[in-house]
């Protein structure tokens, strides 16, 4: 990595509780700007929990508690602070989910929804932004003639790219991917990974994946988590060829019990 690394977001001593259960244990980790950072680890290690702290999704459900900070740069805002509105956080940080979840509306309305929520009234600006986002998601050519058809008519891979376009329409500073390809076939998966490679020029990406080879393929940095702890964080190539921690080694070579 010859270019300069700028930190976009940083978790500082982040603890998270589902009721009394401590799901995240003092996690401190940087997320570098315009790079892809991957979170790997076995089921139940807390990687999705950690991801969802970034856009305060846990606030939607009762009984959850944050301790510590997630600081967003350059304005140094702590996303988890009590005075910070989760709605505002979600307007700056976008999310793509594991199972594609387009709304039962037309393709156009799906992508335009984020803009409507922000009160964008100009039809022309909405149309421009929709086209731009669909281009960025490598979907425009396939849907430009059926913008007003239901989104459910698209294939699985197309639906997921639609969800990506939907998230991109609002110019997020950080894009969260929660196992985005685990419900897709290998070709759709490859197209999404290709897309991520293009997107990272513009947007910082944090991705949770249970597929280690995917993490090795798409990410610049990888973090290995186990039972709520951050075991190792490093440059992806180094972590996969010569990990520093034995636990990481055991996990990525399949020696994990």
């Amino acid at each position, binding site marked *: 990595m010859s270019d300069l690394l700028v930190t976009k977001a940083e978790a500082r001593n982040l603890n998270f509780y589902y009721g009394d259960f401590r799901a995240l244990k003092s996690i401190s980790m940087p997320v570098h700007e315009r790079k892809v950072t991957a979170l790997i680890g076995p089921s139940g290690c807390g990687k999705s929990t950690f991801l969802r702290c970034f*856009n305060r*999704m846990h606030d*939607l459900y*009762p009984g959850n508690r944050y301790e510590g900070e997630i600081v967003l740069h350059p304005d140094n805002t702590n996303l988890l602070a009590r005075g910070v509105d989760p*709605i*505002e956080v*979600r*307007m700056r940080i*976008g*999310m793509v*989910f594991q*199972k594609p*979840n*387009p*709304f*039962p*509306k037309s393709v156009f309305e799906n992508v335009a*929804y*984020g803009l*409507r*929520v*922000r009160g964008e009234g100009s039809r022309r600006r909405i149309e421009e932004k929709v086209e731009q986002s669909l281009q960025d998601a490598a979907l425009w050519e396939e849907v430009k003639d059926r913008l007003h058809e*239901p989104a*459910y008519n698209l294939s699985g891979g197309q639906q997921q790219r639609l*969800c990506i376009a*939907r*998230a991109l329409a*609002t110019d997020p500073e950080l894009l969260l991917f929660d196992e985005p390809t685990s419900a897709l076939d290998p070709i759709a998966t490859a197209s999404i990974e290709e897309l991520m490679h293009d997107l990272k020029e513009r947007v910082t990406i944090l991705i949770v994946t249970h597929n280690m080879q995917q993490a090795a393929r798409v990410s610049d940095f990888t973090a290995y988590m186990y039972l709520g702890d951050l075991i190792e964080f490093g440059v992806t190539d180094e972590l996969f060829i010569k990990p520093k921690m034995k636990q990481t080694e055991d996990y990525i070579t399949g020696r994990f019990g």
Partner: protein
Amino acid sequence: MAAAAPVANHAELRALIGQHKRWDAIFAVCGLLALMVGVLTFAALFVDMALDGFGRLSWDFFTSYPSRRPGQAGILSAWVGSTLVMVVTAFFAVPLGVAAGVYLEEYASKNWVTDVIEINITNLAGVPSIVYGLLALGLFVYQFGFGQSILSAGLTLALLILPVVIVATREAIRSIPQSIREGSYALGATQWQTVRYHILPYSSAGILTGVIIGMARAIGETAPIITIGALTFIAFLPPSPITSQPPFVSFEWLMSPFTVMPIQMFNWTSRPEAAFHANAAAAGFVLVIMTLAMNGLAIWLRYRLRRNIKW
């Protein structure tokens, strides 16, 4: 079949499967017979009523007031009354029921207080309708002073079908996958934006179905209407809602005395002349057709509104 050893050969296996399939067939036949009992009973009643009353159906029947002479009696005041009462019922039941359902599903926190409310609402659906009539008599007719009017009847029936609307709303909202809500919130929407742009549109099919089914029940309710004092013989219509003078809209009809179809039928059935029974059968036929039409509308609307929904 206490077969300790596994089946030895294909012939035995086939015999065993044949035996199981026979039970399949027996159950299918029993199920069909049970279904036929209900269907044939309804068909028999309907056909019987149609045969009795079909001859009486005519334009005059629909446009005449009741009369002492069976040949001249009609259901004009009855069906107009039924329609107006249904309008009032819908006007109150739908917003109250939908709002309550949305609140319980989306806004209320899940604690024991909400559970108690839920249980009570479901129980309300089983309360005998005459109890609603008594409540309405004391509250709407006397306490609020609405009198024995369409407004009182509409409010009573609205209360009656409110649990149905609330439950239908809640079921429709519950069937919306959580992933859709999360998708909306993740884009920075507030709770109200999510309800307005997603929850309500996607549950509208289920809500409408519940409303129409509730209304189809309400249209046939007799006991509460009698209790609050619907008249049985009226030879006039409530005042028209549209007037020729400003402000061109009148609400006088709300306070007007009225009658409804079931009451008219009941009245005719209790007369000794056989000709009135034919009238009653004709009115019953019309009532059933109205109910079937409403159910048909519910089915069609559900189909239309659910076209994009995939859950």
